[in-house]
């Protein structure tokens, strides 16, 4: 299966402070059917930034063969990526990994989608698929501050959407868990993606339930060959059993791996 291809950038725009939305077009998009998967991007043609960068698939349009990534400018790689403009080409490896199990949610059930910061993007494509299946979705999106908030409107169109900010400049003050508690949000399933401290809390809170968490880890190959991205399994936390975030994940069932 051909997994690497040159895509064409159709648009790039700033959607919040240092947050960009990048849309690309290519045949490979037809394989991007599982939300929560990611792509491994070569951010430039130059050797100074050597390794690819993993970015989640944020939204997919199978008709126009385009997909969106939403990313925050962090370091050199994302800085250079943010300089690309429509019409330029980009080398995309993917879709990679195992995404969220959409099929676990049945029609009429309620799914809580909890995202933190740059963990928010994959939840959008997920939410769209869930809604299509007749699942009720509730979104809780956590950000640092008002200036960091993105995609609130888009999510609101799919279901109730609660935004939290750590500094209280927008929405509920505090963490996503504060919103879940204050609004007593109940659900049949939980899907989440975000920073490890957040996932760790959810991993505890939703233990034994139908909850799925998407992890981040620094990656080398992105395809399972280099062993850069492994984590311990919960049943053998000090031992040699492991999962690779890039191929076994990034999405794991709650309680499966040590976060």
């Amino acid at each position, binding site marked *: 299966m051909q997994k*690497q291809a040159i895509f064409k950038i159709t648009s790039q725009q700033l959607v919040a402070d240092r947050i960009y939305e990048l849309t690309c077009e290519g045949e490979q998009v037809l394989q991007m059917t599982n939300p929560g998967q990611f792509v491994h991007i070569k951010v430039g043609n130059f050797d100074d930034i050597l390794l690819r960068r993993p970015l989640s698939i944020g939204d997919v349009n199978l008709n126009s063969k385009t997909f969106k990534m939403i990313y925050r400018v962090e370091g050199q790689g994302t800085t250079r990526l943010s300089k690309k403009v429509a019409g330029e080409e980009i080398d995309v490896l993917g879709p990679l990994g195992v995404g969220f199990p959409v099929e676990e949610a049945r029609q009429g059930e309620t799914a809580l989608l909890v995202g933190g910061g740059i963990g928010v993007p994959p939840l959008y494509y997920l939410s769209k698929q869930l809604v299509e299946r007749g699942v009720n979705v509730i979104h809780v999106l956590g950000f640092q501050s008002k200036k960091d908030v993105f995609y609130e409107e888009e999510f609101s169109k799919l279901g109730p959407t609660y935004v939290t900010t750590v500094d209280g400049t927008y929405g509920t003050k505090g963490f996503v868990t504060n919103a879940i508690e204050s609004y007593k949000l109940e659900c049949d399933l939980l899907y989440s993606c975000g920073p490890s401290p957040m996932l760790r809390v959810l991993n505890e809170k939703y233990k034994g339930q139908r909850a799925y968490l998407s992890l981040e880890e*620094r990656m080398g190959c992105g*395809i399972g060959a280099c062993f850069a991205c492994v984590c311990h399994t919960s049943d053998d936390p000090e031992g040699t059993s492991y999962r690779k975030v890039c191929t076994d994940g990034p999405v794991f069932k709650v309680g499966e791996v040590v976060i």
Partner: protein
Amino acid sequence: MSRLSIELPGLSLKNPIMPASGCFGFGKEYAEFYDLDRLGAIMIKATTSEARFGNPTPRVAETTAGMLNAIGLQNPGLSGVLEQELPRLGQFDVPIIANVAGAKMEDYIEVAKKLSRSPYVAALELNISCPNVKQGGIAFGTIPEVAAELTAAVKQVSTKPVYVKLSPNVSDIVAMAKAVEAAGADGLSMINTLLGMRIDLKTRKPILANGAGGLSGPAIKPVAIRMIHQVSQVVSIPIIGMGGVQTVEDVIEMMLAGASAVAIGTANFVDPYICPRLIEELPAKLDELGINDVRELIGGSWREPCSVR
């Protein structure tokens, strides 16, 4: 023999290009991208006697034109490799070079002995140079006498040719090479990674959980070329060269330096098709340079021209 083929102890290579150890797992993942039969050989990930989880994450970090890794030799252990990985790889028509690692001499001997007896293994690569294992590893790779002792011990138990993989983190690479040659090594493979570090400005801690890690990629190519150039002139065993190779020009440069074949590590992560792509590009580049047979290149920077060895 074709113009790309190379004969080395234990290895009949269709072409001089192979993936480097640790950068290709046990082949499974890349087999989804292309037919592994196209490769000259495959150097599989280091095997230790027991399964190892390796180091805590983060295990990789970016550097300018390179990367740092501190995987810590994660592998399924001797039995996992012998029973699962090798038989799976064995279906391909490509020589397998098994990378042997350990913390103590006895570990190396056990692993070498058993791996060499696998019908799927064509040769061993003795990894005396992994910078990411705390005990043992370093000393084996930096003290000629210790490296020689280990080499001799492994040669005694191995039924297959043994290539010793040298560390570049030494004052005198020539002394290391001569010592392991004298101890019976059938070939050398060089270079392993340089020891490096990156520090995160915000956390103020090294990015790698392990602190330091191995530097690989184009950044280190000039060091590899220099060491291969030095060593190839003083030993008579062949060298499998590696370190930063990304293009056919790099392959040729490394062979001119003195390598008889070339392994590609980090570049696999950048372009999963890099190995077959370079194999495909090689003949046209040879034509351009007026070279008939790839063997003419070996040591071309210091040998008299035209003497194919």
